[in-house]
């Protein structure tokens, strides 16, 4: 129970950092997955899933009114759920658990994005109250009103993480004992395909101009040289 509570709080903090407060990148899937892994005592699972989530959501930008996938809570759901499932299903191959957690948390990335839109619509009512407080010169109430928005963002993160974790744990406990051995060999090919997605995502960001092709090729050669010298 204490572990579930830790995961849920980590989800709330991640949600805050994604847009409402700080934005110091602790909400990045790679960071929050590794930190969740560290909290639950399994950094390797955090690193493997965090890398995959970071590749998928590395290009999503929280700009203006855009609806961006909620990688902040999904990273915590996936990693936390995977580690708890591994602990509760010791006989099941770890790769099957990782694949199942990946699928469910990717889905929660989309569901989380919808809840962000809903929360932002709810925040519109705060503006009406803010106008009233400003007219009455109640500055402290106006400040409190803004902080309500921050708290709502934290609560949204907690609710999404809790529901995601619930779905992941219940479905994992039902499915994995029966299909675990069948799903297990699929994880490595899935991992390779998601790695390959990274090329499309990062090249779309950095190799937009013809002048960037030269540093891109230099990077290719550099990595090939490192691999040749067994340094990669």
């Amino acid at each position, binding site marked *: 129970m204490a572990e579930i509570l830790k995961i849920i709080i980590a989800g709330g903090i991640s949600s805050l950092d994604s847009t409402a407060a700080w934005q110091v990148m602790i909400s990045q899937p790679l*960071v929050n997955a590794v930190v969740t892994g560290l909290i639950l005592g399994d950094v390797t699972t955090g690193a493997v899933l965090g890398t995959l989530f970071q590749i998928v959501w*590395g290009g999503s930008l929280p700009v203006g009114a855009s609806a961006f996938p909620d990688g902040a809570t999904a990273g915590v759901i996936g990693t936390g759920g995977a580690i708890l499932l591994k602990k509760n299903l010791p006989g099941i191959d770890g790769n099957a658990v990782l694949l199942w957690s990946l699928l469910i948390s990717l889905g929660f990335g989309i569901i989380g994005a919808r809840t962000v839109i809903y929360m932002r619509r709810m925040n519109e009512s705060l503006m009406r109250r803010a106008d009233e407080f400003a007219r009455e010169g109640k500055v402290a109430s106006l400040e409190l009103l803004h902080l309500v928005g921050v708290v709502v963002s934290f609560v949204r993160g907690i609710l999404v993480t809790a529901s995601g974790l619930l779905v992941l744990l219940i479905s994992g406990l*039902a499915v994995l004992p029966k299909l675990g051995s*069948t799903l297990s060999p699929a994880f490595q090919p899935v991992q390779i395909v998601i790695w*390959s997605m990274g090329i499309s995502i990062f090249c779309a960001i950095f190799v937009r101009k013809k002048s960037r092709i030269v*540093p*891109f090729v230099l990077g290719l050669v550099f990595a090939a040289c490192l691999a040749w010298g067994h340094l990669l």
Partner: protein
Amino acid sequence: MKGGRKVRRTDLLLAGLRAFYLQGSWNYERMQALGFCFSLVPVARRLSGSKAELVSFMRRHLGFFNTNPVMASYAIGATARLEEDRLSGKGLSDEELVRFKGSISSFFGSVGDELFWGTLRPLSALLGILLVSRGDTFAGVVFLLVSYNVPHLYYRLRGVFSGYDAGLAVTKTGGRISPLALSKWLGITGAFLGGTYTAAFFLMGAGTGSKGAILFLGGALVSYYLLRKRILGATAVAIILTLAVTLLVLFACILTGGDALGLLRHGIAPLLLRWA
């Protein structure tokens, strides 16, 4: 200066620190308006001599506002300066102030989004991914956080003071390091790391055998087509590819003599029945 009221450096620092919560009440109607007003409260308290002045100050800054959250500190600093100037009677009128805020929010929005969201954030992520994939998990996480937050905190905390010093000329400031020049050089570094990523992960995929290399190239082509043509978002593409590969592996398992009937009888059928 009316009653000698002047913004202090501590007020600016407080406003800068409050700007970390700029987007706390973000909404589709006026976007960061309440956050902007919240950040300016220490300045408002310093400059307002009466409740009427305070009311007027707060109402002026509850209008539509949206910019890049990091570069918002420049807008906050410049607005504090213009509010201070108004006390001596040489400042802008209400309408001019609203127009000024609108123009600087667009300017800092485009500069900041390009630098922080479009370049620095994916670059830090790429650096982190490359290090973690080498097995340096903690180094990857630390590099991701440090490479992003050093410029992030520099612009955030310096911005409020630079914006105040520059006032109306705030768009001409940006610290010793121009954000546009920084974007350009970080973009080139990102292209280099993109090349490194491509080769490194291709070799990791190919390291699992020829099937891995084919899968890697196939996945890259399919995702490139879907993402480039904007047919689907990255999350949807990842879900589709994950499901497709999982089904492919399941079929391969059945075709190569895996226990297909056993899987149906003991695995899938009872689950479907239970859910039905």
